[in-house]
């Protein structure tokens, strides 16, 4: 009887400990899970950080629907590059591929690495903005005094809901010189 009880307890405690470990893991699993949910729902307005594999349909129905895409740029704390969109906004038809560009300049007397992070408002529109090419896919190393124009090639998916007539694509530029793998490359160049 006593022995059975002790075995019971041992088994129960083992099970509970597994639950604890499992829930600790679950906390971490929330990270990729969250990303997946964000990708599906546009939960946080994040756009993909990789090239999309889908291409606009060849003979996309030409509708007269025009969607305004606004471009914003801002620097995160500690980033002193000049950073701005070259176009305030463009009008595109869903399915139409557009190319726009941003301007960046490193005014410092030393090389730095920047990383642009995109975000879209309204965030439900994020999943319909498909980027074929974007400077945010890579780190941006700039030499002292270097200036670049950086491009984005994108289209708006035809399935975008009717009520979205304007969307805003915003880039925040962060200084990642310290943590970047290209940092050494820059200084060596």
């Amino acid at each position: 009887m006593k022995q059975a009880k002790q075995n019971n307890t041992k088994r129960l405690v083992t099970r509970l400990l597994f639950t604890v470990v499992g829930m600790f893991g679950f906390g971490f699993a929330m990270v990729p899970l969250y990303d997946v949910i964000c990708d599906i729902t546009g939960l946080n307005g994040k756009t993909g950080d990789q090239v999309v594999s889908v291409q606009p349909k060849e003979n996309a129905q030409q509708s007269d629907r025009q969607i305004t895409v606004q471009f914003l740029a801002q620097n995160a704390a500690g980033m002193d590059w000049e950073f701005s969109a070259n176009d305030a906004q463009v009008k595109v038809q869903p399915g139409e591929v557009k190319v726009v560009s941003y301007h960046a300049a490193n005014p410092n007397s030393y090389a730095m690495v920047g990383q642009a992070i995109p975000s879209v408002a309204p965030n439900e529109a994020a999943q319909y903005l498909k980027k074929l090419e974007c400077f945010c896919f890579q780190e941006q190393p700039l030499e002292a005094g270097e200036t670049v124009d950086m491009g984005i090639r994108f289209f708006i998916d035809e399935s975008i809901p009717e009520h979205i007539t304007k969307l805003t694509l915003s880039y925040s530029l962060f200084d990642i010189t310290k943590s970047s793998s290209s940092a050494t490359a820059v200084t060596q160049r």
Partner: protein
Amino acid sequence: MLPKAKLWLALTIAALTSMLSTSLQAAWDLNMPQGVTQISRETYDLHMQILWWCVAIGVVVFGVMLWSIINHRKSKGAVPATFHESTKVEIVWTVIPFIILILMAIPATRVLTEAYDASESELDIQITGYQWRWEYRYLRDDMNEEEVSFFSNMSTSREEINNQLPKQETYLLDVDNPLVIPINKKVRFLLTSNDVIHAWWVPDFAVKKDAIPGFINEMWTIVEEPGVYRGQCAELCGIDHGFMPIVVHALPQDEYDAWYAGQQEQAAAARAAANNTITMDDALAQGEEIYNRTCVACHQAGGTGLAPAFPALAGSSVVTGDLTDNIDLILNGVPGTAMAAYNRMLSPVELASIVTYIRNSFGNSTGDLVQPADVNALLQEAQ
């Protein structure tokens, strides 16, 4: 009444009245403001509706309880009943609250759906939160237009906060550059942050949303009455979280247009002024003004600083040392500290003045007169 009791009463009343008179406004605000937008009024109605539901439920439940407490007490000879369960009753008081909840959820869903529809806006403004100020940027259709953008800092003086000067009526709720918007126009705000999470909130608009670094959020309002509306940062964002108010001036369209044109002219003039030269007197006067507005909170009057976080400027090795390094530090800030980068917060003229001022005040006497062109050269070192 006993004389002693009377004395106490008189003393209490005197104490209370003296405390009440310390506030400048008769401010016994008990409730949410109804505000000046359709959404704010609907939110208020929703709030009141739920409140009355709660009051009604409370009256019934606490009423029964009070009745029992008064009547079913042992001292009155109450004999305990023996009932202790009833499935029927349990079902009733599960279902009725559920129905009430549905009645609450319907209007709540409707108001939320309206509040979430930011489409068809007529004016877009980007709001960026900084530790501890807001930046407003009016979005343009065309990059060739002159851009209107500015920082909005709390203008309440440190003397008022530290009880050295009497507090004004708008204590902690005043800024140097308020946000200006037209009335009866759908204004869409695009919200982000430079550093930590802030939240932009104006109660009269019923608009509150988080400003998150790296991400952009949107919200909107249509203000129906001209006026000055005040709010505060709502998300803990560090030391001066309590000191980043929001002030919005809502103007009739024509006044707004005039203001906007004026701002564009000023922006153009500031750019032109970057090539002008300034005199020592002008620089010192303007520098002092900027210092008292922008720098004094940390570096203190007299440039004494506040150890250990905020270094003194009086006798500082930076301020009395190499001029270019000094300008550079003010332009780019010191990452990881409270020293912000002022390259975009101040114009070249202002930057030149403030550097000139600190290098020739608090006992510092370098004699340097910095020109806007010097600052500009550093700003555009790259090109």
